[in-house]
C-alpha cells in the first residue's frame, strides 16, 4: 500500500518551493521557487482525483471490462489542474518579463543589490 506518500511528496515540493522563495536573493530563483510551489499544488489536485487502478475517463476505445464509474479517474481535478497550469504559465511569463526589465535597468539580479543601487 502506498499509504499517503503522494500527498507527502506534495508537501515536500511546496516546502522546496517556499524555501527558494523565502531564503534566496536571486530573482530568477524566486521565479523558479514559485513554479515549484505551483507544480506542488497541481500535483496535490491530481492526486486528490486518482482512483485505485483507474483509467482516464474517455469513452473513445475504452478498454472493455472497465466498470464505468469505479474504474475511471475523477475528471474534475484534471479540469482544475489544467486551469491552474495555464495560470502558472501566465504568472511566470509576467514575472520573467519584469525580471528582464529589472536586469536591463540595474544590471544585477540580486534583490538586495537593487535596493542599494536604487538609493
Amino acid at each position, binding site marked *: 500500500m502506498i499509504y499517503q506518500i503522494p500527498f*507527502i511528496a*506534495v508537501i515536500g515540493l511546496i516546502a522546496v518551493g517556499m524555501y527558494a522563495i523565502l531564503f534566496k536573493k536571486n530573482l530568477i530563483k524566486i521565479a523558479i521557487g514559485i513554479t515549484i510551489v505551483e507544480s506542488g499544488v497541481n500535483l496535490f489536485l491530481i492526486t486528490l482525483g486518482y482512483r485505485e487502478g483507474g483509467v482516464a475517463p474517455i469513452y473513445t476505445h475504452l478498454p472493455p471490462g472497465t466498470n*464505468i464509474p469505479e474504474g475511471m479517474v475523477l475528471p*474534475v481535478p484534471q479540469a482544475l489542474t489544467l486551469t491552474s497550469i495555464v495560470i502558472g504559465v501566465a504568472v511566470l511569463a509576467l514575472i520573467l518579463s519584469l525580471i528582464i526589465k529589472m536586469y536591463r535597468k540595474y544590471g544585477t539580479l540580486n534583490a538586495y543589490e537593487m535596493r542599494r543601487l536604487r538609493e
Partner: protein
Amino acid sequence: MRKIAGAIAFVIFFAFLLFSMYELHEFGKPPSDMDDYIIQNAQNETGANNAVTSVVFDYRGYDTLGEATVLFTAIAGVMILFRRGKDEE
C-alpha cells in the same frame, strides 16, 4: 536572528501541513459523488466522449472563460512592458 526565526516558522508550518495530509482520505479512494455523476452523464448531456473536456468546456466552462482571460491578461501585460514607443528611449 531573522533567518532562524524564519526557519522555525517554516518548519512548524510544514509540519502542520504534513500532519493534515494524514487526515485526508485514503490515497486511492476519494469521495466521488459529483465525479461519478459527471462520468455517467457526460456523454448524453454534453455529447463528448472525453469527460474531462466536457467538464472543462461545459460543466465548468465559466472557469475556462476566466482561464482564457488570465492568459489574455498576462500577454497584454507582457506587451505593455516591452512596448517600443517614442517615450521608450
